[in-house]
């Protein structure tokens, strides 16, 4: 394959991944690394470097649109970023030290988990709990506009959420993904933050988290300009388009297709990792 052909095809695949990732809310990075390694036989370290860069682009590009909705809580975001950035640094250093087969296996498990969480029914826990003293002290509680006016929320279980966020950051740094699934687990399930606030705040955090490991990746020579260029431009264009078109009726079936794709890719990554074909 010539560079022109390779770049065009990778750019197109990245565009579709960014579009689907944005429409389904699952993020494009999670399918990009397996696609690059399985379809294009790219070394997983190059794939992770390119994906990480595209994660920063999507998160930062979408931030302006998210902010207008006024749901994100910058205090929750900034406080939890302490955990995610330390986690990301840890993940990036781990990535340079452990074998690629182990990375592939971890990636497979994360993909299977993402496929599972995207299908699992969301448990609507009771949200009107009394304020947690630690959350109050950290000024994490807030409110957001709802149909019936302003709705206040009280953040719960701060230490659990903080620890999960360290894990999310480590996975992001190790695998070059936004790890939105773990972030939502931490904020939505553990800390009982309303879903809209969780997703918008998580988007804000993803860029900062990815930047913490991207510096390490770049300096280690994992970011190849020829590969990162079509990936970053493709994912950015796809996700921007995805955030502007709203095909609500189709989102449900799109989600199903996308989670099936994630499931297949997860099994492939596990297979590749266990048999050393990576």
């Amino acid at each position: 394959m010539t560079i022109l052909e390779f770049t065009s095809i990778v750019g197109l695949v990245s565009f579709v991944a960014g579009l689907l990732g944005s429409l389904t809310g699952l993020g494009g990075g999670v399918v990009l690394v397996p696609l690059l390694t399985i379809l294009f036989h790219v070394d997983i370290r190059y794939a992770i470097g390119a994906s990480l860069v595209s994660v920063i682009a999507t998160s930062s590009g979408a931030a302006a649109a998210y902010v207008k909705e006024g749901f994100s809580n910058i205090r929750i975001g900034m406080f939890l970023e302490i955990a995610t950035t330390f986690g990301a640094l840890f993940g990036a250093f781990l990535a340079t030290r452990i074998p690629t087969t182990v990375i592939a296996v971890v990636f497979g498990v994360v993909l299977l988990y993402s496929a599972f969480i995207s299908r699992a029914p969301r448990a609507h826990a009771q949200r009107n709990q009394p304020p947690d003293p630690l959350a109050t002290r950290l000024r994490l509680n807030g409110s957001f506009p709802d149909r019936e006016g302003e709705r206040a929320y009280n953040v719960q279980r701060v230490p659990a959420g903080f620890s999960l966020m360290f894990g999310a950051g480590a996975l992001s740094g190790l695998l070059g993904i936004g790890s939105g699934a773990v972030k939502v687990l931490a904020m939505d399930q553990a800390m009982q933050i309303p879903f809209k606030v969780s997703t918008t705040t998580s988007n804000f955090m993803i860029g900062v988290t990815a930047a913490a490991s991207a510096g390490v990746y770049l300096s280690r020579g994992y970011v190849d300009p020829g590969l990162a260029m079509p990936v970053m431009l493709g994912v950015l264009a796809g996700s921007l388009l995805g955030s502007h078109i709203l095909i609500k009726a189709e989102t449900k079936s799109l989600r199903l297709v996308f989670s099936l794709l994630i499931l297949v890719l997860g099994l492939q990554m596990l297979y590749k990792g266990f048999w050393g074909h990576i």
Partner: protein
Amino acid sequence: MNALNAAPQPKPPGKKTQSTAAAPNSPDEKPQSGFSRDGVEAWTDHRIEVILGNVLRSGVVLSAVGVLWGAAIYFARHAHQAADYRIFRGEPSEFRTIPGVIHSVLDGQGRGWIQLGLLLLIATPIARVLFSIAGFVLERDRMYVAFTLIVLGVLLYSLLGSGLTF
């Protein structure tokens, strides 16, 4: 959790549970937080976020322009060479250190421009964190100024301390 005894008295839920959040007092009012004590225009969380959103978008646009320009040069010179990423070699120092990237940009290398665009992209969230510090300073929120400085430290360590500058 013993250290939390000094925490402020919990207020009943449903009311404003946090004086510093951008919580409107009623749906009809404009969102306003408790920072208007000395300023004509209050520095609300939301206002800071809008500025931050625009900072981030500008950074991404600037970065994409750099990457596109680099791609044009790269294609003009290397379009018909073979692409192979099967074997990991690691990038040469001209594409993985800040001085190396600047040097290859001055040489007019397409891949140098791409890396410059990517460096700008990595710097964009750092700019966001810097602006957040300014915002928390204006809100006189010392605790969050400290939190944000920690995050900034980690980011700068990643970018400068991990070998990028050498």
